[in-house]
């Protein structure tokens, strides 16, 4: 429900903005500065920061450009969550602040810090280049401008949401795997890769995919869904990542990488027993050598604690497996039919 417009200007609250500060020229480590200002309903975090910069401390540094939620410049962490300062209402944040009256403002994570709330976006651009986040048109350059590709609404809808991405890097900041390894492809780059790979005008699907299935690529995602949940444009980023994986298996086969083998194991086991055969999952994913090297000490501990999964022959099939298998296999036929008609 929306409030009557008059109420938007009613009342003011004193709000303390606890702003992350770091100037590499003089500071050996970051610190926080508190700025307390009166804020009325309807004011965004960005407008508050502008006010602080203009009236209290001109040295507070942050990026801002369109101030309308379209350019993606002012992404930062507000009370720990990555979002656009320009579309974030102060009173909304305040209602959920752990410390009453205090809003903590910090730079995005997972990108190198430049100063205060400003981080370096170059690594993200570098990854966009590395993963060919562009359409390499099937139409030769010399032919361009003469006629349109005919694109169905159905195809348009496949990448419509993905093209909403404004590269604000909120998802980059929230990504669990990037926290662990800065080399990881990044959610935004996976999203863009997906957007390109489902576009029928593109000619470099295979090359892009070949890069995506390598280390630090699409299979490293841990599906924590933080990217999707923090997306300022509400883009279902995980759908795109799943789409790429589906595509990887379809175009490169199930034995392509440890990621695809791992995923495929679920399919095989469910058909066979209705249950996952966990004991051999590491071997099927990464082979015997890897498993022995990486999991043997653990396995010993597990055995001591009787935590080891049952060996395959002892895994009991679920009740009614026979009839289940018939259904499962019949579905496999459906899928084959679908693929045939899709190819047509």
């Amino acid at each position, binding site marked *: 429900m929306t409030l009557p417009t008059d109420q938007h200007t009613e009342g003011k609250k004193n709000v303390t903005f606890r702003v992350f500060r770091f100037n590499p020229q003089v500071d050996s480590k970051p610190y926080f500065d508190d700025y307390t200002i009166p804020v009325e309903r309807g004011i965004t975090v960005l407008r508050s920061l502008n006010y602080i910069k203009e009236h209290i401390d001109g040295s507070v540094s942050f990026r801002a450009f369109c101030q309308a939620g379209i350019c993606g410049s002012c992404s930062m962490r507000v009370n720990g*969550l990555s979002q656009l300062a320009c579309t974030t209402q102060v009173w909304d944040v305040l209602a*959920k602040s*752990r410390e009453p009256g205090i809003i903590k403002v910090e730079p995005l994570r997972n990108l190198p810090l430049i100063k205060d709330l400003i981080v370096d976006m170059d690594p993200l651009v570098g990854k966009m280049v590395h993963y060919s986040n562009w359409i390499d048109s099937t139409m030769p350059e010399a032919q361009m401008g003469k006629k349109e590709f005919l694109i169905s609404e159905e195809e348009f809808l496949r990448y419509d949401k993905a093209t909403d991405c404004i590269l604000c890097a909120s998802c980059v900041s929230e990504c*669990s*795997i990037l*926290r*662990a390894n800065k080399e990881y492809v990044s959610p935004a780059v996976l999203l863009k890769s997906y957007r390109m790979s489902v576009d029928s005008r593109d000619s470099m699907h295979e090359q892009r995919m070949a890069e995506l299935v390598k*280390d*630090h690529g699409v*299979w*490293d*995602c*841990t*599906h*924590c*869904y*933080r990217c*999707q*949940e923090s997306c300022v444009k509400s883009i*279902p980023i995980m759908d795109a990542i*799943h789409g790429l994986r*589906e595509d990887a*298996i379809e175009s490169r086969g199930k034995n392509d990488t*440890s990621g695809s083998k*791992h*995923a495929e194991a*679920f*399919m095989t*086991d*469910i058909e066979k027993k*209705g*249950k*996952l055969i*966990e004991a051999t*999952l*590491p071997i099927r*994913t990464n082979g015997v050598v890897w498993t022995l090297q*990486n999991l043997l*000490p*653990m396995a010993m*501990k597990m055995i001591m*604690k*009787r*935590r*080891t*999964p049952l060996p395959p022959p002892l*895994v009991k099939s*679920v*009740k*009614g497996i026979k*009839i*289940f298998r*018939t*259904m*499962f296999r*019949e*579905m*496999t036929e*459906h*899928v084959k039919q679908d693929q045939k008609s899709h190819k047509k």
Partner: protein
Amino acid sequence: MKRYAYYLSCINESMTKEVDRSIELWQKDLGIELVKLHEGTCCGGSNLEYVSPKHFALVNGRNIALAEKMGLDLIVSCNTCLMTIRTAKKKLDESPELKREINELLKKEGLEYRGTSEVRHLLWVLVDDVGLDTIREKVKVPLKNYRIAPFYGCHILRPSTVLGHDNPLDPTSLDQLIEALGGETIPYTHKNRCCGFHTLLVAEQESLNVAAEALQEAIESKADFIVTPCPLCHTSLDGYQAKALKNAGVENSIPVFHISEMIGLALGYSAKQLGIKRHIVC
């Protein structure tokens, strides 16, 4: 006695047997009965969805249909199984065509997916159906003096379009349960973060780093233990703890419990009865 259909997660049948064993011990104490669904199959563990979206819908449509046949809601104690089955439910409810296709197959087994049973996490049942007041009343050994780090895990929270019980970035239900059991929750920024389980076999280093961060914060906050509603998080944080912390150069450890064990302890069952001795860290 309120009855529910109980989904058997693969991992609870193998590596984390103590979860189901604990639930069996105390379910009647809290006035609930979880009827095990032995015909249920593996949900596909957030993988099947992109290997074959249609098999994914069939398998989980069937899992839900089994509960529907009993006229009961389907209760899950593994976050990923929960998220996976609920995702399938959402897809089926949104696509009459897909629903028709799987129902055509389910006929063979005399099953039909109708969309009448809810798919819920054990934690939600405890907080919403049993109720915190009842839980408070039934506590025999309050967890007072324990500082507990609530680790929700991802798939009980996100995607919020599929889960929708707690605020995905600021959840509270597990904190409430801990408090009802007499424990003290610590402010824990990793409460809604990832345990790393799903990349353990594909990107091990990254996975261990993710787990180490969560463990470190709990250790540094002087928590007595971590509690999680998910056996996968448990496996990552307990089973791989030594390796993760060694990697991160931390010489310390912290026990990790599943909620079913924590409840068992508060209701007066022994660590032995609950199978806590089977944990790697205990």
